[in-house]
């Protein structure tokens, strides 16, 4: 805890020093607060019991309270992680000296953890809940909240979807429990459960939240912890708590960061020199070699830039009167390394947490508001840059197509006619598209916690939350863009160019909850009971507006008038839940929860789900034989079982087979009259809750007076009534496949996390944490009745050919496993183009010879981080490793063969892998392209210096430097092995970022 002496406390002390100067010679108390090693405890608080009078402790451990009337007072010294100490003092007309020596507690165990509908001390937990608080957050250029805890928690995999500004992440807790249902965990911000719906114009809904406003994350991983959230908890729950006002005088915190992002690695394609040699070598005639020009263009260099970004946050928090408050504003100006991609974000957070009626009514009001302005780059430019002929120039020297060089197909009288199927100039693609969005979002929550006057053990809580957003934007193509050739005929048959399309989605999601909570210590029978009983109703509403498309001259594009001005999507959930905790003698803990959920996404009669859980824990270290043991200072055994539900990732109205009207470009004519078609939707009448049962066995342990703490969890998770795509018997439905409750899937896994305070003195603090996760996923059934002939469900569409899939969901294998031909190699180990192993030995190679190999998901993954503080210097790193994850190198498979280079639409570049394979023709489904993508990535290295007071008595200043995405060790040959779905196809590359940060507290 010592390294936690944050700038805020130091700053408080500064204010205190000022008040010392004004100290009058009347009655008062002063003294010092130190720890068991006699080191000062700045940031501790000393107050007079029963009043609001008090003082913070300064850097030297000193405190003072002035202007006291003579009398006897009870002083309390408090500090997080230490046992409260009370002393009685009698004050007359002079200053009394009182010194406190605080005893450290098992700090980590007394930590209060946010759980569903309440908080609990870590030592009393029965479920698998991981918490990460501010002090352990990742530092540096963190623009979206989930990046704060990347690599910090065992069992939680957070992979950024790309390097684009504001790009989201795929968060998977224990690998995700569903196939076609959602695999995203439920995210709850200050009690507001967020919808999984994307927000139009925002790359990632979480990106509307300023990471700087976040105080802590609680991750409910197992069913017993998550079951209280029942309906949306199958993939775990992430509870985010924002920062609140602190008692005392206002503290102003300002931080600013400047970051510089750079491309780490170009996609491996032929250089201009290699390209000339190669084309000359493979070309059958001059019609191809004639297209080699004299330029040496590195197209990738052309489209990427050094991205300079900055972030500024300012917050003020304190208490005015009896009103604790925190107000913050933040501004982020982020530029992407792909030219034309950028994001501007303005955020504001207001938190008010007054207590009324002598603390009987606690009110917490929270407002998170944001405005994000974004420009999306045309990411097609990434593929174009890898494909464009490197001997072509960037600019043509004439005015056609914005001056960008393009591959032409001259026609009589029109030498400038563009070849519309040729690879487009990547810089032109970026420059000639203007795709911008404006997104507003406000999350407002009001929580009332009333402690009954006549029965203080009982609380009544009411939460009212609203999450509203409005995302809109336009996607505009210049009429001069080569991509707009050859134009489209308007209603009068005149050819028009350019296009403009608007989009807009509004969302309003509300939650109203009420619950009673009861807690009581029955000291006589050494028992503690707490209970929660509540209800909640959630409504989700999303309105997607439909607009016509227009040419650049404002005229409407034919056939684009929408049938409906908007599409309204609604769903509602109603729930009743209860939880009972009982503990005996702080040794034996038992928790039971039950939640009933009703979802309007299912047909009446089958829309109710029940989600129970039960968990027990035995605190072995509180038994007599271990009590007082400082080597094994904590040992707890937990056993948990619970069931959670999932109804995300499916449509709102699917159980109704309604008819939808085709759009105006999908009409059919009888005679000369065109009719918009009424299409019946598929039937999903029997679809209901997907449920996931998890069994968890865990040990929590602490050694050496808890300088080393950790947990080991073993889990077995089985998803039943899996929401999976299944083939519908043909002729019985209006779709050949439906998403229904068929099949089962299981995950077996283990998680280990260890945190250690290796050195912990006043001048040097060194801590380290490691976590490891092992997960084995297997689909155990995909059909309503067992069927060994079921061929599986193709997944993972790829670039190359039409309709090719590289993955499959098949019984007996992990979800999304690769499904490929086994490549045959010659004596020299060179792959033979198009020669595969005849797996079934029928003498022919066809789709019956495809077989399952490898999974895109890691078999094991690890996080490691360490922080060292030496006096005012601090340094640290965090890194992640992933083992056993495979990736399909779609860039190599779709471009690394000679017939690709000799495209009839103009020669193109491609993967330099072709020099190894010498492939002539594509081999999309060869296992040659399934590569081991295990990696070790140094996510972050940082160094900081704490100047302490920079002004006379105030102004705590800290300067830090970070490097993010420092290096990666991998055998994978593509740009980046870390790909969410395992299919590597021109991902927006993750930059390496250098960050300079400054933090000032006043």
């Amino acid at each position: 805890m010592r390294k936690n002496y944050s700038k805020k406390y130091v700053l408080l002390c500064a204010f205190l020093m000022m008040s010392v100067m004004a100290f009058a010679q009347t009655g008062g108390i002063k003294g010092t607060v130190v720890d068991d090693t006699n080191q000062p405890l700045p940031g501790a608080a000393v107050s007079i019991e029963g009043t609001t009078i008090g003082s913070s402790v300064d850097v030297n451990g000193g405190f003072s309270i002035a202007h006291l009337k003579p009398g006897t007072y009870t002083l309390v010294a408090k500090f997080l992680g230490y046992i409260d100490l009370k002393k009685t003092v009698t004050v007359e007309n002079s200053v009394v000296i009182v010194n406190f020596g605080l005893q450290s507690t098992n700090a980590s165990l007394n930590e209060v953890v946010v759980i569903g509908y309440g908080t609990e001390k870590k030592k009393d937990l029965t479920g698998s809940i991981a918490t990460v608080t501010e002090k352990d957050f990742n530092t540096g250029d963190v623009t979206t909240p989930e990046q704060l805890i990347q690599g910090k928690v065992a069992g939680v995999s957070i992979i950024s979807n790309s390097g684009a500004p504001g790009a989201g992440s795929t968060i998977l807790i224990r690998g995700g429990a569903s196939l076609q249902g959602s695999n995203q965990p439920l995210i709850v911000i200050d009690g507001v459960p967020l919808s999984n719906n994307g927000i139009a114009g925002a790359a990632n809904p979480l990106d509307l939240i300023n990471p700087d406003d976040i105080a802590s994350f609680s991750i409910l991983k197992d069913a017993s912890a998550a079951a209280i959230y029942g309906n949306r908890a199958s993939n775990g729950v992430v509870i985010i708590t924002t920062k609140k006002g602190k008692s005392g005088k206002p503290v102003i915190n300002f931080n600013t960061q400047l970051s510089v992002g750079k491309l780490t690695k170009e996609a491996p394609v032929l250089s201009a020199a290699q390209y000339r040699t190669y084309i000359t070598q493979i070309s059958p005639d001059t019609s191809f070699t004639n297209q080699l020009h004299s330029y040496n263009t590195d197209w990738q260099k052309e489209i990427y830039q050094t991205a300079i970004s900055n972030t500024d946050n300012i917050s003020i928090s304190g208490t005015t009167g009896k009103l604790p408050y925190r107000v913050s504003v933040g501004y982020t100006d982020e530029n992407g390394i792909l030219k034309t991609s950028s994001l501007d974000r303005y955020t504001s957070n207001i938190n008010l947490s007054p207590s009324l009626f002598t603390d009987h009514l606690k009110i917490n009001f929270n407002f998170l508001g944001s405005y994000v302005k974004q420009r999306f780059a045309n990411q097609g430019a990434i593929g174009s840059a890898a494909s464009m002929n490197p001997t072509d120039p960037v600019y043509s020297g004439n005015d056609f197509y914005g001056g960008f060089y393009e591959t032409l197909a001259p026609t009589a009288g029109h030498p400038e006619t563009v070849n519309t199927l040729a690879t487009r100039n990547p810089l032109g693609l970026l420059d000639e598209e203007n795709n911008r969005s404006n997104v507003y979002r406000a999350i407002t929550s009001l929580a009332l916690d009333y402690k009954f006057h006549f029965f203080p053990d009982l609380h009544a809580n009411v939460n009212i939350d609203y999450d509203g957003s409005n995302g809109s934007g336009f996607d505009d193509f210049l009429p001069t863009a080569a991509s707009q050739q050859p134009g489209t005929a308007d209603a009068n048959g005149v050819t028009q160019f350019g296009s403009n399309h608007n989009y807009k989605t509004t969302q309003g999601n509300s939650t109203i909850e009420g619950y009673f909570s009861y807690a009581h210590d029955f000291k006589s029978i050494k028992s503690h009971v707490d209970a929660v009983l509540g209800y909640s109703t959630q409504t989700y509403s999303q309105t997607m507006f439909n607009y016509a498309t227009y040419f650049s001259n404002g005229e409407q594009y034919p056939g684009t008038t929408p049938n409906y001005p908007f599409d309204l999507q609604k769903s509602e959930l109603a729930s009743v839940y209860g939880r009972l905790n009982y503990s005996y003698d702080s040794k034996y803990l038992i928790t039971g929860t039950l939640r009933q959920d009703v979802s309007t996404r299912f047909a009446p009669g089958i829309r109710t789900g029940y989600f129970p859980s039960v968990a027990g824990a035995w605190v072995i270290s509180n038994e007599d034989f271990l009590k007082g043991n400082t080597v094994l200072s904590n040992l707890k055994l937990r056993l948990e079982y619970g069931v959670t539900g999932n109804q995300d990732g499916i449509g709102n109205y699917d159980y109704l087979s309604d008819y939808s009207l085709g759009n105006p470009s999908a009409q059919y004519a009888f005679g000369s009259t065109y009719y918009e078609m009424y299409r019946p939707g598929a039937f999903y009448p029997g679809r209901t809750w997907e449920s996931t049962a998890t069994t968890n066995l865990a040990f929590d342990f602490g050694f050496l007076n808890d300088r080393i703490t950790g947990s080991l969890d073993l889990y077995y998770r089985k998803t039943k009534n899996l929401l999976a795509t299944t083939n519908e018997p043909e002729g019985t439905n209006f779709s050949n496949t439906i998403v229904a409750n068929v099949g089962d899937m299981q995950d077996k896994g283990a998680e280990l996390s260890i945190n250690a305070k290796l050195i912990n003195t006043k001048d040097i603090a060194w801590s380290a944490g490691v976590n490891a996760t092992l997960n084995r996923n297997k689909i155990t059934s995909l059909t309503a009745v067992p069927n060994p002939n079921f061929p599986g469900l193709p997944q993972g569409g790829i670039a190359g050919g039409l309709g090719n899939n590289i993955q499959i969901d098949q019984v007996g294998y992990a979800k999304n496993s690769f499904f490929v031909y086994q490549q045959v190699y010659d004596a020299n180990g060179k792959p033979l183009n198009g020669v595969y192993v005849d797996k079934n030995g029928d003498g022919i190679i066809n789709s019956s010879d495809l077989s399952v190999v490898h999974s895109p998901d890691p078999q094991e993954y690890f996080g490691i981080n360490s922080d060292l503080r030496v006096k005012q210097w601090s340094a640290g790193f965090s890194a992640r490793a992933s083992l056993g994850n495979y990736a399909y190198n779609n860039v190599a498979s779709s471009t690394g063969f000679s017939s690709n280079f000799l495209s009839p639409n103009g020669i193109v570049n491609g993967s330099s892998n072709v020099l190894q394979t010498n492939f002539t023709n594509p081999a999309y489904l060869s296992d040659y392209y399934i590569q081991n993508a295990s990696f070790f990535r140094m996510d972050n290295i940082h160094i900081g210096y704490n100047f302490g007071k920079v002004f006379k008595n105030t102004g705590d200043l800290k300067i830090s430097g970070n490097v993010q995405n420092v290096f990666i060790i991998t055998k994978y040959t593509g740009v980046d092995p870390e790909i969410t779905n395992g299919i590597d196809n021109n991902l927006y590359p993750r930059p390496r970022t250098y960050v300079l940060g400054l933090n000032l507290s006043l």
Partner: protein
Amino acid sequence: MLTAGLLAFSITSCKKNLILTPNDQVTQQQVFSNPASITQAMAKVYGSFALTGNDGGSGAPDIAGIDEGASDFFRQLWLTQDLSTDEAVYTYNDAGVQDMHNMVWGETNQVLQGLYDRSLYQITLVNNFLQQTTPALLASRGITGNDATTIGYYRAEARFLRAYQYWVLMDVFGNPPFVTENTVLGSGLPPRIARADLYAYVVSELKAIDPLLVKPMQNQYGRADEAAAWALLARVYLNAGVYTGTADYADAITYASKVIGAGYSLNPNFTQLFLADNNLNAGVPGGGVATQDEFIFTINYDGVKTQGYGGTQFLTHGSQGGSLENPADFGVASGYSEIRTTSAIIALFPTPPFTDGSHFPNNGNPDTRAQFWYPGQSLAITSIPVFSNGIAVTKFRNVTRAGAPGQNTTYSDIDMPLFRLSEMYLIYAEATIRGGAGGDAAKALTYVNLIRTRAYGGSTAGNLNSTTDLTLQFILDERGREFFWEGFRRTDLIRFGLFTSSTYVWPWKGGVAGGTGVGDFRNLMPIPESDLSANPNLHQNPGY
């Protein structure tokens, strides 16, 4: 606490029966309650021939698990019927596509699954339409008079479309699942129907609807009439031996004669058959100012209002590539360099006087049906993925007779005839040669020479002189010339016993450059594994 519990309970109860409905969809009852929306439902029954979903191009597909652009009916039919033969090779490694020409398709082949799914999807739409428009239901919804009469025609046409799709399934897959308007939708496992039983069903359905359909050439363009049912009957009877083991050439002659006698006539200019304004070849209301009436039944596309990536869009874009890249000639933005033909087809035609591209589109060939492009292309195919290997095709072009481009250079205006008059002439001739009762050899010769004269641009230079020239081999070759790339070839080669045999080989037949025979079991395609695993009533065709 009690009140809270009660409140909680009442809140969940009121949600238990809450029906939220979308603002932009309507219920089945609403659709089938008024004649206008019933017509729109019928538009979907027809439209699922041409379109792939509810959005033009792509975006809201009917069929899952397949690239939407390739999921239309005719493209899948073409890949099955023409790519599997001497008529075409295909450049790209699209899912399952190369297996078709290599003749190594298996039970998980995506092309075959796509065709099977599309055919059964349309059949399911038909069954639903029939269930929702029974005379009793119409009467109960107050739909009477002319509206009821029109809907009565729709019902007969829906049954025609179902019979047509069952013909496709019978021809390609043999023994598919069998569903009718008596099948309850939304559940159940349809029974399998054996090929011979399906044959009997198709024939009986077509005969049953014959009197219920609009008279020949009297219906709106795009809708089936009585002649369409006759034409399908003629085609089914011609292949009866393949489907049932018992030939029935007499009935083929009967029904082909009925169509021929209904008043259709050939367009003297063959090159006008597959152009953007080829609706002018249909002598029925709405087809434009009909100059000829050769088309009996068509799938209709429109570059603006009926947009899709299948059918004639695929044929026009797919056949352009290499030096055959002239948007002005094709009315499309750019070719896909995708499909070409083999030397076996080129050999069916006379040698053209020019191969330099100067006499577009048929190189001055006396047989004007030889619409090919030679510059930059080689007759020999050494590598299937290389577009310049093989001869390019200029038959399908999205330009009007006057040479103006189609309405939209990404999509196609060309309608695809499923039945043309010349097929009836050739059915008559073939059935007659094969000894069908009632056939007249002299008449057969006349019919064949009508086709030949039209092919030779009005000249009789290509005419057969006597009925002795009218051999079966000639008929097969003539069908190859007349119906090139129109989705007939596989069925024809099977009827002639040449599809799998080593007697007749073509480049890359069986995956070998010189061509080789394959197992006879490949005369039937496999039932897709996706449906076999979903429906235990089905079983796989022998050999797979």
